[in-house]
């Protein structure tokens, strides 16, 4: 019978146990993700839509999450990608809004200004190699001028009449482009967004058919209650 060196085995066990833990110091992959956000400008304003699901990989974990939020009186912000990063960004946006309210100088931060701020935040985090893993749409109306902008995790940003993130950029965007006219009515815009979200539900494996639509015009800024889309699978 060979002797067992208990002291040695104990020391080896301690050595393994006391190894420094591998610590992640930056976001490398999104974990809880939201799917596409789509948006279209219409005559009086801008409209964006998201579904209400947060996926955990292939698990449809949360199915009633609001992914569109308001900022100030006339701006909407919605995001796909890592939801916790969006929540973190929303905290910063809320603090920005509070500071804006406290200034009380008759002017509030508008959608293009928020878009610029978010772009800088996303860009700075990317520069630190620790991005906020989101693809964001910002919609608003400022002095009767509609705004629809996109920002993503690396700080890419642009404006357009129709925009979408994720799979929506491939599937919905052509449909949105086809439907867009400068004098598009609110009802037509709503129908177009609903149709696009339906197609996305058919084709995107990480989507559900419960959606929310945010509308902003010169006079209102509102997010609808969740809408269940009817589908025809045959």
């Amino acid at each position: 019978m060979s002797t067992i060196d208990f002291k040695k085995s104990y020391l080896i066990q301690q050595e393994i146990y006391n190894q420094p833990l591998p610590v992640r110091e930056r976001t490398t992959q999104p974990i809880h993700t939201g799917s596409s956000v789509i948006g279209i400008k219409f005559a009086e304003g801008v409209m964006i839509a998201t579904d209400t699901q947060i996926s955990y990989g292939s698990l449809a974990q949360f199915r009633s999450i609001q992914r569109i939020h308001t900022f100030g009186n006339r701006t909407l912000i919605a995001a796909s990608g890592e939801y916790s990063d969006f929540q973190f960004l929303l905290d910063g946006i809320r603090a920005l809004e509070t500071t804006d309210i406290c200034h009380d100088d008759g002017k509030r931060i508008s959608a293009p200004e928020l878009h610029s701020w978010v772009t800088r935040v996303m860009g700075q985090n990317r520069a630190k190699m620790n991005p906020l893993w989101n693809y964001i749409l910002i919609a608003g109306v400022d002095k009767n001028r509609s705004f629809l902008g996109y920002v993503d995790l690396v700080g890419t940003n642009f404006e357009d009449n129709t925009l979408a993130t994720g799979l929506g950029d491939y599937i919905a965007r052509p449909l949105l482009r086809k439907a867009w006219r400068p004098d598009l009515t609110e009802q037509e815009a709503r129908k177009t967004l609903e149709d696009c979200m339906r197609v996305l539900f058919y084709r995107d494996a990480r989507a559900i058919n419960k959606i929310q639509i945010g509308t902003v015009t010169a006079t209102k800024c509102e997010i609808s209650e969740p809408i269940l889309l009817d589908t025809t699978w045959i």
Partner: protein
Amino acid sequence: MTSVGTGYDYSATTYSPEGRVFQIEYASKAVDNSGLSIGVRVKDGVVLGVEKIRVSKMHVEHSNRRLHTVERHIGCADAGLMADARNVVNRARSEAANYFDNYSHSIPVRALAERIAGFMQAHTLYGHVRPFGCSILLAGYDRTGPQLYMIEPNGIHLGYFGCTAGKTRQAAKTELEKLKLNELTCEQAIKEVARIIYKLHDENKDKDFELEIACANANGFKVVSKEILEQAENYAKESLNDEMNE
């Protein structure tokens, strides 16, 4: 018992033989020299009114506000040295933001009053900083309803139904005591506050003044709109005329 502080009033770190700290009392004198500030807590909110004495005809209207928004649901009026007040208000904003960062909940008015009071009191402890020469009338609306606090230069903060600060505060307090504050609405209170400020404004001593009014109610803290302010001023001027005609 001397009410003159000779010898004991050079530093906030010195007590007088009667146990008074004269520097803090002198700070209150700075508050007493300012234009009138009134706060009233009524049924559905809190109304703040300020008599902003226009020092020069060259001043732009609405500049140098004496009403400040601290959070969405809290605001304040100041009395005394305005620059000191700006320092305190910035600290209050920072405290409110910090509270939200920690608790994900808007700061209760009482908690903010305590923090401001602590901040102001801290400046009464040392020889190398002077006490703040301002009082803050803090108005807010939170889960417990409308609340009004006044924080004085010595750090005392008390909740009030009606409080006044500035030159004509005693006369204003008397006027407030005539009102049934817990039966008024914000709308009525705005008019009454305007009336009191106009009534007690001394035309001979300070020529021109600007009226500022704000209201904290369930919709948050807002400086009142031009229309409401005009209505209140008209009501105040009519009341003055009625009194003169009597």
